[in-house]
C-alpha cells in the first residue's frame, strides 16, 4: 500500500517536473525588424516528447535524483501534515466537556442565578455565604436556621458590650468585642450564657479531602475553622452588629482589617487570636513588592472585591466537587469582571486555561508536557492561540506579584506568629485597646 503510494507520487512528480519545463518556455517576443530571426521548425516545442517523459531529459546521476526526491517527499509530508491538521482542526472540541448532565450541578446553576442578582455595592455577606455553601450541600440547608444562629450571636455580643460598658457607636469597640468573641471565653453571668473561643482546625485545612471544611456552617457546627471560614464568620457577625471590617489577603491566607476613628488600621489574625503587625505578615517572605503595588495582598477589600472573592470561592467549590468545565469559566469571568486583579480568580483562570489547552492538545495527539512534542502545535493556529492565552495569563499572575508558597512554608509562618516576641506585641496592642476603650467609657 505504501510503496504503491510512493510510486504514484513518483509518477506524479515526474509529470509535474515535465509540466514545469514546459511552462518555462519563454513567450515569443513581438517581432521587430531588428530581432527577426529565421524560424526553425522545432521552435516552441519541447524536445522530449511525451513518450519519453518517464525521466527528465538531462539524465543526472542517481544521487541528485534521490536528494531531490527526498526533498519533495519531505515537503509533501509537511503539506499532508498540514492538510491532516486542518481536517483534525475541524473536529477538535475546544471547550472542556460540561458536567451539566450531572443532576446535582443544577444547584450550582441555581445559586449562580441568585448570586448574579446581588448588588455588588451593597450586599449581605451572610446571604451570599449561605447561597454558596447551600449549593455545595445541594440546597438542603435551612436559611432561617442559619439566620437565627447569626442573630443570636449578635444579641449575645450586644449584651456583652452592654455589660462591659463599651460604647456601641464606636467601630473600635465593636471590633474589639468581635475579636474577643473569637479568641476568648465570654460569659454573660446574668443569663448563664457562655461562649468558648473558636479553634484552628489543623486537619485538612485546605479542604482537599472535604471542601466543606472551608465553610462557615462547619465552623458554627464544630467550633473549629481555618483562615477561610473564621474571617468570613467575622464579616458576617460584623454585618450583624453594624461594625466595619474588611477582608484582606496574604499568601495562602486571609485575615481581617479594621480601623478606628483616628484612621489607624489594625490587623486581626483569627487563626490564633492575635493582633498582627505588618512586619509579621511580611515575614512570611512570600510577599513581593509587586504584590503590594498591584494590591493583591495586605489591602482591605472593597465590597465589590469581596463579592469577587466570594465568586472565586463558589467556583472553587464547584471545581472541587465536579471538576473544571465551562461553568467554572463563567463564574471566574464574573469574578474577574468585578475585580480584574483578584489573585484568586487569576490563579483559577490560569488553571482553567491550562487544563483547557492540555485537553485540546491531547486531541490532536500532542503531549503538552513534552517540549519537543509541543513544537508540533504550530500547524494548529487555534491551539497556538490557546497556548498564547495560557502564557499571557501566567505573565499576568507574575505581574501581580504572586509567588508560590508551599503548605509547609505556610504552616511554619503561622507557627512563627506564636513566638514570644510576636505574642508580646499582640498583648501590648490588646492592652492599648483596653485603655482606649476605657477612656471613652469614663467620658
Amino acid at each position, binding site marked *: 500500500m505504501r510503496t504503491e503510494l510512493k510510486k504514484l507520487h513518483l509518477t506524479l512528480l515526474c509529470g509535474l517536473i515535465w509540466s514545469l519545463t514546459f511552462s518555462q518556455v519563454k513567450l515569443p517576443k513581438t517581432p521587430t525588424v531588428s530581432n527577426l530571426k529565421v524560424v526553425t521548425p522545432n521552435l516552441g516545442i519541447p524536445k522530449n516528447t511525451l513518450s519519453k517523459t518517464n525521466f527528465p531529459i538531462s539524465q543526472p546521476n542517481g544521487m541528485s535524483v534521490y536528494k531531490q526526491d527526498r526533498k519533495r517527499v519531505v515537503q509533501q509530508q509537511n503539506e499532508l501534515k498540514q492538510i491532516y491538521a486542518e481536517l483534525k482542526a475541524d473536529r477538535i472540541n475546544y471547550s472542556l466537556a460540561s458536567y451539566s448532565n450531572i443532576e446535582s450541578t443544577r444547584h450550582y446553576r441555581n445559586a449562580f442565578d441568585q448570586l448574579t442578582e446581588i448588588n455588588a455595592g451593597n450586599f449581605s455577606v451572610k446571604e451570599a455565604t449561605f447561597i454558596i455553601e447551600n449549593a455545595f450541600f445541594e440546597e438542603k440547608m435551612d436559611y432561617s436556621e442559619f439566620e437565627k444562629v447569626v442573630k443570636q450571636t449578635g444579641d449575645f455580643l450586644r449584651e456583652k458590650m452592654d455589660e462591659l460598658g463599651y460604647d456601641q457607636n464606636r467601630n473600635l469597640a465593636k471590633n474589639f468585642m468581635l475579636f474577643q468573641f473569637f479568641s476568648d471565653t465570654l460569659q454573660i453571668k446574668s443569663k448563664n450564657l457562655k461562649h468558648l473561643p473558636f479553634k484552628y482546625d489543623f486537619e485538612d485545612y485546605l479542604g482537599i479531602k472535604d471542601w466543606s471544611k472551608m465553610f462557615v456552617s462547619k465552623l458554627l457546627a464544630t467550633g473549629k475553622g481555618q483562615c477561610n471560614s473564621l474571617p468570613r464568620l467575622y464579616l458576617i457577625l460584623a454585618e450583624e452588629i453594624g461594625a466595619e471590617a474588611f477582608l484582606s489577603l496574604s499568601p495562602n491566607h486571609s485575615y481581617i482589617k479594621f480601623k478606628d476613628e483616628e484612621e489607624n488600621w489594625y490587623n486581626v489574625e483569627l487563626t490564633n487570636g492575635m493582633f498582627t503587625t505588618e512586619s509579621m505578615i511580611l515575614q512570611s*517572605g512570600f510577599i513581593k*513588592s509587586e504584590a503590594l503595588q498591584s494590591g493583591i495582598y495586605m489591602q482591605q477589600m472593597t465590597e465589590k472585591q469581596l463579592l469577587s472573592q466570594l465568586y472565586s470561592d463558589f467556583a472553587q467549590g464547584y471545581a472541587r466537587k465536579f471538576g473544571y468545565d465551562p461553568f467554572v469559566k463563567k463564574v471566574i469571568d464574573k469574578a474577574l469582571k468585578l475585580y480584574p486583579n483578584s489573585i484568586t480568580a487569576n490563579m483559577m483562570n490560569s488553571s482553567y486555561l491550562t487544563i483547557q489547552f492540555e485537553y485540546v492538545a491531547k486531541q490532536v495527539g500532542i503531549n503538552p508536557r513534552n517540549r519537543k512534542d509541543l513544537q508540533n502545535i504550530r500547524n494548529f493556529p487555534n491551539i497556538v492561540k490557546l497556548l498564547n492565552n495560557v502564557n499571557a495569563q501566567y505573565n499576568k499572575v507574575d505581574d501581580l*506579584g*504572586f509567588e508560590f508558597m508551599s503548605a509547609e512554608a505556610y504552616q511554619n509562618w503561622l507557627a512563627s506568629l506564636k513566638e514570644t516576641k510576636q505574642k508580646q506585641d499582640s498583648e501590648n496592642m490588646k492592652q492599648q485597646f483596653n485603655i482606649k476603650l476605657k477612656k471613652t467609657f469614663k467620658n
Partner: protein
Amino acid sequence: MRKLLLLLFLIFNCFVLSAQNNQYLYDEAFTTLSEMLEEKRPLNFKKAVFTVENAYLDGLLDTTFLNKKINFLKNLSIQVRQNRNLEYQEKDKIKVEKYASLFAVMKDSLLMINQNNVKYIHLPFNYDFEDVFGHKDWSKMFVSNLLATNKGNCHSIPYLYKIVAEEIGVNANLALAPNHIYIKHRNVKNGWYNTELTSGIFPIDAWIMASGYVHLDAIRNGVYMKALTDKESIALCLVDLAQGYQKHEFYDLEFVIECANKALEYFPNYVNAMILKTEAKGKKIENILFSYNTDFRSVRKYPKTYAIFKEIEKELAIIHKLGYRQMPEEMYLDWLVSLKEEKQKYANKKINTFNIKTN
C-alpha cells in the same frame, strides 16, 4: 612683549571662562537629559550618566578610557557566556545567560588565559565603605570613579551594571530602596527577582520591607521597590545632576528646582526629587530672609517667604503621605550588612538559575 601680553590675556581669559563653563556644561547636560525624556533624541542611559559626571568634572571626563573599560567588560561577559552552560532551560535562556555572565563579571573573580598562556585574574567590583553618600567627595558616586578604582557604592555599581547590560543587549531595571539602588530582573521561571550588587546576593523583598524604614504605602505607591522604566532612570540622572551641581561653591537654586520638576514630570512619585525641591525652596527662603537681615524665625512675616513656606508644607505632606520616612545614614550601613549576616533568612533560595551545568 606683545606675545607675553597675549599670553597673559589668554591665561586670564581661561579663568573667566572656566567659571562660566561650569554653568554652560550643566545647562547642556540638562538639555541632553530633557531631550531624551521628550523623545527628541535616543534614550541612552550610558550617555546620560556620563553627561552628568562630565558636568561635575568641568568637562574633563575621559570618555575614551571609560568606553574602553566598558567594552572590555562587555567582551569579558561574552567570553564568560560562551564558556559556560547553565542549568536554566526555559525559553528565555539566552537572556538569563547574559544576566548570569554579567553578574559574574561584576561580582566574581575570573581567571583568564591569553594566547601566550599567561594567566590574568579579573577582580570583582568592591563595595567602598568609606564616604558612602559622597559627602566629602561627590565623585565617589560616579561610574567613572568605579571604573578607575574598582571600588564603588550602591549608586555607581548598579549604574555600571545597567550600562554594561544594555551594551550586551539585555535590559536591567533599576529599583529604589531607602538610600539605596538595586537591580530588578525578570525571567520566565521566577517572575521578578532582585539582584543586590553591593553584596552579590539575590535577596527576597522581605529584606527591604523588614528594614523598618519602608512604609508599606511607599511600596504601594511605587516610591520604592518598583522596576523603573528607562525614562524613570533618566529622571534619576537629572536629580544626580542637581545634587552634583549643589556641591559647587556657587549655584543657582532655580536650576536645581528646574531639574527636580523635570524629573517629577516623568517620575511623579520620585521622592528624592521632591525632597531636593523642598530643600531648594527652603534655601530660597533663607536667602530672601538673609537679604532682609533676618532669619528663619520671621518666615511668616513676609508674604513672599510665607507663600513659599506654605508650598513646602504642602509638599512635605505629600511626601509623608506617599509613605516616605527618612532612614538615618548610620542605619543604612547596618541594614546593608544585615543581608550578609542573615543570608539564610533573606536570600532568594529559588534563584538557582545561575547554576552551571557540571556535565
